């Protein structure tokens, strides 16, 4: 037996060891249990060394990242700073382009919304006089701009063209002290004159004290100055104060006059309604029937020649001109002449042929003289 064991010793040990581990596996699988003790020993033996290893790794990684890895960090930082500055400029340019595109879209929509024909222009400069409020735009006489044309924006009117040059125009803003615009208040419908103050605000003159003007009320162009079409927004009332004869009304323009970039020059102005305007009178749809023919004392029941004999309606001359017209038509028909035909200089019909004064309804009384015969 001992010899047998010695002969198969290795295989026996292998079998025992493997069988023991298979039993261990079976124990875990069947009982759904864990051999915690074995794991505990292994973890307890390994963890301290792992902690040291982890610390060494952190140390090495920190040394690498904080010292060796930072080689060239200064150059990289400078490069990144340059990149950041370049991106900032690029971002700013793109924002400006986006803002410009949005403004142009608003201008285009406004151009289509209003009745007047306008020309888009870009503000290219301001006047040299600090006391005046003028700007230069990039459209001039070559584009059809003429002095006196209104300059507007979707936010409100801006000014009027004061001088025109071949490639540019000088625009007098409504905030200039020499600017005057006929305006109308939205609610009270009071007319006044908007005058510039030299600042970014304006005032309205000639509004009587008894007119009720509210702060925040909108101001529109009245069209009375024959520069700005009626119905364009000017601004809103900022403050009102009773004056000696007229109110002192301060208006904030709707457009920011110190930040104008694009404007519309009104090349063909058309007046339009103010908000709240009553609709235009319509043609009457319900009409009474015509009065009966022949019932009157001064009625000539004659069918007009152009209507033909089959026309149902009678023609009733009402005035001397009507009667004269009818007479001429009868003369033309008798002489087979059609008015409106024939070359210039051709012979006209004889308007005196067979003419006799129309029969009078009653004999002329005292003090009445017979009507003289008309002379063609």
């Amino acid at each position, binding site marked *: 037996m001992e010899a047998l064991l010695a002969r198969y010793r290795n295989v026996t040990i292998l079998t025992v*060891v493997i069988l023991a581990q298979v039993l261990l*596996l079976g124990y875990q699988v069947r009982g759904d249990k864990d051999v915690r003790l*074995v794991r505990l020993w292994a973890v307890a033996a390994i963890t301290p060394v792992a902690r040291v*290893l982890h610390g060494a790794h952190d140390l090495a990684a920190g040394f690498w990242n904080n010292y060796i890895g930072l080689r060239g960090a200064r150059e990289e930082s400078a490069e990144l700073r340059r990149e950041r500055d370049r991106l900032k400029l690029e971002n700013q340019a793109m924002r400006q382009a986006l803002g410009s595109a949005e403004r142009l879209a608003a201008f285009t929509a406004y151009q289509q919304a209003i009745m007047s024909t306008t020309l888009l222009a870009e503000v290219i400069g301001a006047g040299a006089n600090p006391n005046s409020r003028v700007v230069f735009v990039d459209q001039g006489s070559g584009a059809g701009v003429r002095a006196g044309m209104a300059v507007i924006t979707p936010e409100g009117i801006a000014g009027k063209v004061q001088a025109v040059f071949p490639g540019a125009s000088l625009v007098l803003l409504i905030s200039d002290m020499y600017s005057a615009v006929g305006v109308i208040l939205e609610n009270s419908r009071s007319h006044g004159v908007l005058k510039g103050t030299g600042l970014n605000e304006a005032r309205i003159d000639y509004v009587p004290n008894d007119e009720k003007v509210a702060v925040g009320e909108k101001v529109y162009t009245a069209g009375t100055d024959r520069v700005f079409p009626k119905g364009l927004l000017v601004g809103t009332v900022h403050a009102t104060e009773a004056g000696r004869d007229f109110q002192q009304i301060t208006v904030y323009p709707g457009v920011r006059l110190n930040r104008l970039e694009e404007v519309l020059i009104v090349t063909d102005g058309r007046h339009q309604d103010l908000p709240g305007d009553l609709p235009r009178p319509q043609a009457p749809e319900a009409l009474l029937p015509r009065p009966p023919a022949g019932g009157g004392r001064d009625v000539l029941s004659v069918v007009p020649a152009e209507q033909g004999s089959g026309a149902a309606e009678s023609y009733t001359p009402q005035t001397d001109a009507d009667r004269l017209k009818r007479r001429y038509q009868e003369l033309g028909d008798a002489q087979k002449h059609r008015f409106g035909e024939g070359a210039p200089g051709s012979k006209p019909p004889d308007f005196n042929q067979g003419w006799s004064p129309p029969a009078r309804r009653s004999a002329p009384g005292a003090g009445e003289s017979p009507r003289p015969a008309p002379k063609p």
Partner: protein
Amino acid sequence: MTMQASVPQLLEADLSRLRPRVAVAVVIVALLLQAYIPSVLSYAHLIDLPLLITIYLALLRRNPVVGLTVGAAIGLAQDSLSNGLVGLYGTTKTAVGYFCSSLTTVVDVNSLPLRVVLVWCFYMVHHVCFWAVERGLLARPAVLVWPRTLLLALANAAVALVIYKLLDRFREST
């Protein structure tokens, strides 16, 4: 050596070419690296360092008992540090350790290239055993992808070439 000899005695006797404390240190470092490196290098888990060390230590001496003992110890330790069943790697590495040591009785394994070829072979044996235990004993849906296993065996053999060259520096002639 008799059956009554203890495992430390076996280790002392059969790993005489590598000092026992060096052998133990190598095993611990291998287990540590196996548990630690994959957290730093994602593909490191494809290298089975405990298996490479098992093969190396088993090939050192011509004693299958020592080989299976080393394999069982390393395998169980590897199981303990994983979240799997304890005994999976132990079983397979026990078999690998045994057959490695048995092979040394018929083949001279001092040649480094031959040991690398043996690593490739035993890596395949290890994976086939592992697959068989999972599939046969535990009835798990394990899949053995041959092309992948062959490539991994090659990669492990290449790593073994470096590791064995390094470990040979610690060997002492008896």
